[in-house]
C-alpha cells in the first residue's frame, strides 16, 4: 500500500498525552488537513511524521517502509513551520537552496534551483534580498520554496498561514492548493481553521480535545455526515438535539417524533442519541403546524445580516437555529409562535 500509514500512534510528554491511539492511512498525492482545536495534538502528529519527535508507541510507515525511528534530517520531507523559521543571517536565495548546500550540490546548480523555486512561488528577482526586507506574504512563499527545494516526498505545513491577515490568507490558500496540484506532492497541512481545511483539502482528519482522531473523510462528507457530536459541532454550526431512538427509523426529541432517513448501524431502540441538523436544513413556518418532523416553539431572536437570516426558536427549552436566504425568509418576528421543520434526510443521528 503506497502512502503514509500511522499505526497505533501514542505520544506522551511526561504525564501529558498529546496524541492518543491514532490509526491513519494517508494516500499519495493528496492534500490532507489535520483539523482540530488548539491542544488536540495535530501539530504533534505532524512533528511525529516529520521525525522531529518519536512516538511513545506505534509505527509510522512510508510506502511500507518503517520510518518511525529515522531522524528528521535523514528524511526527504519539506516542512514549513508556524514561525516560518527562515534563517535570518542568509539571503532569500541562500535560504531556499540551504537543503542543496547541505547535500553539497555545486554552487551554480544551487542558485539555478533557487531561481526556479522563486519563480514557482512568484518571487522572481528577490533572490539576493535579505529576509528582514520581505513582507509577511513574501516570507511565507520563501518558506514554501525552501521546503520544496529537494522535491520532498511529503510536504508538511504547520499552520503557516495563521499569521497572515484574512485577505492575504485566502489568496495564499488558493495558491498553495494550486501549487500542490501542479507538483502532485502529498501535502499535510495542520490548521485550526475549518474554512481553510474545507477550501484546500482532499481529505480532512478531524482531531478532538481528547487527542484522538474523530473522523477522516472528504470535506463535504464530514460536513454532511459528521461521525460524532464533536465533529458535528466543530465543523460549521449544527443543531444538536438530545433524544431517544424510538423505532427503527425514528427518534423522539422533547416529545416530538422525528422520522429519520438513515440510522447508524446496529442501533437498538431506547438508546440515547443526538440528532444533528445543519441550520440551513431547518425550515421555519409561521404558526403552529401539525405534522411529522415538526417542533413547535417561540421565536426568541432574529439575526438578519443581509446575506442570510438566522432565526432562533425556543422549543420547550430546546434551542433550534434555522438559516435561510433573504428570499426564503419566513414571515416571523421575535415573540411569534412558529414551527421548525426538520427533514428526515437532513437529520444525522449520532450516538451520545
Amino acid at each position, binding site marked *: 500500500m503506497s502512502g503514509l500509514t500511522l499505526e497505533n500512534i501514542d505520544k506522551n510528554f511526561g504525564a501529558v498525552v498529546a496524541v492518543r491511539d491514532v490509526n491513519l492511512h494517508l494516500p499519495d498525492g493528496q492534500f490532507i488537513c489535520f483539523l482540530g482545536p488548539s491542544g488536540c495534538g495535530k501539530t504533534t502528529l505532524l512533528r511525529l511524521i*516529520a*521525525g*522531529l519527535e518519536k512516538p511513545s508507541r506505534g509505527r509510522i510507515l512510508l510506502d511500507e517502509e518503517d520510518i518511525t525511528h529515522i*531522524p*528528521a*534530517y*535523514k*528524511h*526527504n*520531507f*519539506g*516542512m514549513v*513551520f*508556524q*514561525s*516560518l*523559521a*527562515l*534563517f*535570518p*543571517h*542568509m*539571503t532569500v536565495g*541562500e535560504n531556499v537552496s*540551504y*537543503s542543496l548546500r*547541505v*547535500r553539497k550540490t555545486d554552487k551554480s546548480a544551487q542558485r539555478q534551483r533557487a531561481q526556479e523555486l522563486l519563480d514557482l512561488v512568484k518571487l522572481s528577482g528577490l533572490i539576493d534580498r*535579505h529576509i528582514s526586507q520581505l513582507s509577511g506574504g513574501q516570507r511565507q512563499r520563501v518558506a514554501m520554496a*525552501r*521546503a520544496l*527545494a*529537494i522535491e520532498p516526498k511529503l510536504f*508538511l505545513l504547520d499552520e503557516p498561514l495563521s499569521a497572515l491577515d484574512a485577505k492575504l490568507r485566502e489568496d495564499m490558500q488558493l495558491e498553495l492548493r494550486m501549487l500542490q496540484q501542479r507538483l502532485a506532492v502529498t501535502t499535510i497541512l495542520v490548521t485550526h481553521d475549518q474554512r481553510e481545511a474545507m477550501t484546500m483539502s482532499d481529505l480532512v482528519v478531524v482531531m478532538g480535545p481528547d487527542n484522538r482522531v474523530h473522523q477522516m473523510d472528504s470535506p463535504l462528507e464530514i460536513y454532511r455526515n459528521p461521525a460524532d457530536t464533536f465533529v458535528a459541532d466543530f465543523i460549521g454550526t449544527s443543531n444538536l438535539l438530545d433524544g431517544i431512538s424510538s423505532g427503527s427509523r425514528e427518534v423522539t426529541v422533547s416529545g416530538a417524533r422525528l422520522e429519520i432517513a438513515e440510522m447508524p448501524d446496529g442501533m437498538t431502540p431506547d438508546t440515547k442519541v443526538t440528532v444533528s441538523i445543519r441550520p440551513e436544513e431547518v425550515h421555519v413556518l409561521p404558526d403552529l403546524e401539525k405534522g411529522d418532523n415538526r417542533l413547535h416553539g417561540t421565536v426568541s431572536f432574529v439575526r438578519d445580516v443581509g446575506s442570510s437570516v438566522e432565526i432562533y426558536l425556543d422549543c420547550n427549552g430546546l434551542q433550534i437555529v434555522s438559516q435561510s436566504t433573504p428570499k426564503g425568509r419566513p414571515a416571523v418576528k421575535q415573540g411569534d409562535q412558529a414551527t421548525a421543520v426538520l427533514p428526515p434526510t437532513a437529520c444525522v443521528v449520532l450516538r451520545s
Partner: protein
Amino acid sequence: MIEEKPKGLRAYLTLVYPTLMLGIFFIVPFGLMAAVSFFHRQPGGFYTPGFELTNYKNLYTALFGRTLMFSLFIAGLSAAVCVSIGFPFTYFITRMKRRVQVVWLILLMSVLSLSEVIVGFAWSLLLSRTAGLTNLFVWLGLMERPVALYPGFAALLFGICYLAFPYTVLVLYPPLSRLDPALPEAAQTLGASPLRTFFTVVVGSLRNAIVAAFVMVFVFTLGAYLLPQILGRPRHWTLSVLITDAAIYQTNMPLAAAMAIFFMSVSLVLVALTMMIGKGKKIRTT
C-alpha cells in the same frame, strides 16, 4: 510614526546625574591621566607639568613591546577559549527545562561572588604539587606522582577563563534563549545533521552575539592584574603589572600614564577591528 514632542528643560534633568557621575569619576581622572602622560618626570620625586613626548619615547623598549603583545595575546586567547566553550555550553543550557536552567545560572553567578584574589589563591593551591589535584589523580591511579601545574602559562590561562566564563555565559544567554527553536528544526528537516545545524544555523544566526561576547571577555581580561602574578611566571606578567610597577615602585607616574594610554589606544583599535569584521561579514550576506 509617533511624532516626538519637543522636550523641555525638565526632560533633560534626568540626564544630569549620570552625566555628572561620568564626568567626575571617569572623564576627569582619564583627562588627568592623559595630561600626566605628557608631563615631565622628576627623578626621585613626582612630576612637573609640561608637554613632552619623552614618556612615549621611553615606551619603545623590548620589555614593553613583549608585555603588550603578551597581554593582547592572552586576552584574545582566553576570549576565544571562553566563547568556544561558553557558546555550546549556553546553547545546551537554554535547551534544558526552565528549572534546570535557573540552577545552572545560579551556580555560575555564585562564581562571580568570589573575588579574584580568592579564586587566584584557590587555584594556586589546587594546582600545586603538595596539595593539588594531581594528588587526587595519583590516589585514583591515573598518575605516577603529583606534579606542580603552576606557575605557568596554562595555569594562568585556566584561571583567567575561570573568571571570565560566567560573564561569557551571561552575555550569550539572552540571545541564545531567544533563538527560535524552529530554526534548528527547520535546518534538520532540510537535511542538516545536528552538528551541521549547530554550525550553520545556530552559530550563523547568532554571529553578532558571539562577537559581542568575544569583545567583552577580551576587554575584561586585558585588565588582568592579580592572576598573572599568582598563577604565572614573571614572563607571563601583563601590562597591568608593568604599569603598576612603573607607577608605584618606580614612582614614574608619567611613564605609567603613557603606558596606560598607549595600551588603551591599541585595545580600542583592536576592538573596533573585531566589530568591523563582525559587521563586515553581516554586510556580505545581506
